[in-house]
């Protein structure tokens, strides 16, 4: 699909297509068949598009710019390494069970792309549609879940409302007779939701983009934007100045720094979000379980290695430290034990905290920023990972054509002035607080 050029064919030879035959060839080759998936790109003086941030969104945007729009000179710059940001720190859950149409159509588009992503990238991202089930703790919550499930079904998205018996059959790992402070009365299930191997997403996009001739430049921090006559002309980096026709920022938890760099305030606070994994155990959790307990929240899934991967709410105040609050981890672990008492004796192997853009309505921002040729993709709150395939495809269309496709039109910055906030939670202009 890409227009072929000398560079593209050369790069395509460096990134061989994976197939059963390629495995045979790799086995027969004496040495040297397996090569790095992306490497060796040299930073040039000028590009058509510079993407800042080699995470899920940045790499996906670069991939679609090259594949769908035939843009040839693209660079992805990262101050660290590919996939060293939030794409490698999340809890790998994909779902589209949102209430608002502006959100659920977008995330449903993303979920459909997850289903075929391994084929599109020729790289196994291990999409597992094991089902995402949110538990319901009261009759009021049941009514709210029914409303959300119905909104999804009207949009053609699968949703099932489970009563206690239905939940017992779907998720027998939950002991419904356990005496909880907030007893579980049912669940809202999306069977096509599930998990994806997060690192493989970054690696797969990086490999596919490299095959299309995208330059991935690691250890190259962008420190400023140069502009002349109201148009951005390029970026200052730690490796010197690079000219660019268009600049895309996809820097996950550091969108605030982009605002500071360009001298504007954004409707974003930077918070810490923690996650943790336990020691590996035999299969216990068969789906993704999400449990709200008024004061706390837990989402948990079991990795292929057997570890329980879980996370909860934000630490609660702006921070750039990436040091999670002990109190929050303790609270999240307690909630896990309340949901699944059989996990009480498990050891936590690792826990980590990532910086997370939290917008003032809980929905992302995809828009121009300050200049006509500077584009911002950020403010993903809790939805960054699951949005990657749709975000990459539609944001690339926006950057290439200058017109945002319908699915992302609602994520423009001006919605805060116009009163068109996408406040899924109905919580007002604040990130989640408990």
């Amino acid at each position: 699909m890409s227009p072929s050029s000398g560079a593209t064919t050369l790069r395509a030879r460096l990134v061989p297509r994976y197939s059963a035959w390629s495995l045979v060839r790799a086995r027969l080759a004496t040495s040297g068949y397996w090569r790095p998936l992306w490497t060796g790109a040299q930073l040039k003086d000028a590009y058509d598009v510079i993407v800042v941030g080699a995470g899920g969104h940045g790499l996906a945007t670069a991939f679609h710019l090259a594949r769908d729009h035939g843009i040839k000179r693209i660079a992805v710059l990262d101050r660290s390494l590919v996939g060293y940001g939030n794409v490698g720190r999340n809890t790998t859950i994909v779902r589209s069970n949102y209430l608002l149409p502006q959100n659920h159509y977008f995330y449903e588009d993303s979920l459909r792309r997850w289903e075929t992503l391994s084929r599109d990238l020729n790289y196994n991202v291990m999409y597992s549609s094991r089902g995402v089930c949110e538990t319901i703790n009261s009759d009021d919550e049941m009514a709210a879940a029914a409303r959300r499930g119905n909104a999804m079904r009207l949009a053609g998205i699968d949703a099932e409302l489970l009563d206690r018996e239905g939940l017992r059959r779907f998720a027998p790992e939950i002991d419904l007779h356990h005496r909880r402070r907030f007893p579980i009365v049912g669940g809202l299930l999306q069977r096509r939701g599930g998990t994806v191997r997060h690192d493989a997403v970054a690696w797969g996009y990086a490999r596919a983009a490299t095959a299309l001739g995208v330059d991935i430049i690691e250890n190259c921090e962008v420190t400023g934007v140069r502009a002349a006559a109201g148009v951005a002309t390029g970026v200052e980096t730690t490796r010197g100045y690079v000219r660019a026709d268009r600049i895309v920022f996809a820097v996950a938890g550091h969108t605030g720094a982009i605002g500071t760099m360009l001298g504007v305030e954004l409707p974003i606070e930077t918070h810490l979000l923690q996650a943790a994994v336990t020691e590996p155990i035999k299969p216990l959790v068969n789906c993704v379980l999400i449990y709200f307990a008024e004061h706390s929240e837990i989402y948990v899934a079991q990795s292929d290695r057997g570890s329980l991967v879980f996370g909860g709410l934000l630490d609660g105040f702006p921070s750039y430290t990436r040091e999670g609050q002990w109190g929050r981890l303790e609270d999240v672990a307690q909630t896990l034990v309340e949901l699944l008492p059989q996990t009480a004796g498990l050891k936590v192997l690792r826990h980590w905290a990532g910086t997370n853009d939290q917008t003032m309505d809980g929905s992302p921002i995809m828009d121009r920023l300050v200049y006509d040729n500077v584009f911002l993709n950020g403010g993903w709150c809790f939805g960054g990972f699951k949005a990657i395939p749709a975000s990459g495809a539609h944001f690339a269309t926006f950057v290439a054509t200058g017109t945002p496709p319908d699915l992302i039109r609602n994520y423009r910055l001006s919605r805060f002035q116009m009163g068109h906030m996408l406040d899924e939670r109905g919580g007002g202009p604040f990130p989640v607080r408990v």
Partner: protein
Amino acid sequence: MTQLACPFCGPRELEEFLFHKTLPSPDATPFADAYLRANHRDVSAEHWQHVRGCRAWLEVTRNPSTDKVLEVKLIGPVRA
């Protein structure tokens, strides 16, 4: 940062407090006041409330790059 020193109650666990927002610049428009955040890495003044304690509103001066708290004081007049 695991504790905040409430002027009334003394040092208390962080879970007792609720972060409200980083204070906007004095010349902020009402829109900026409600929706926009400077969100920088330097020391900033914030409003917190001791919700699970004396419920006093506090102005906390804190560095979000290190989470070091420099000052905690009460907001507004205090009746004797």
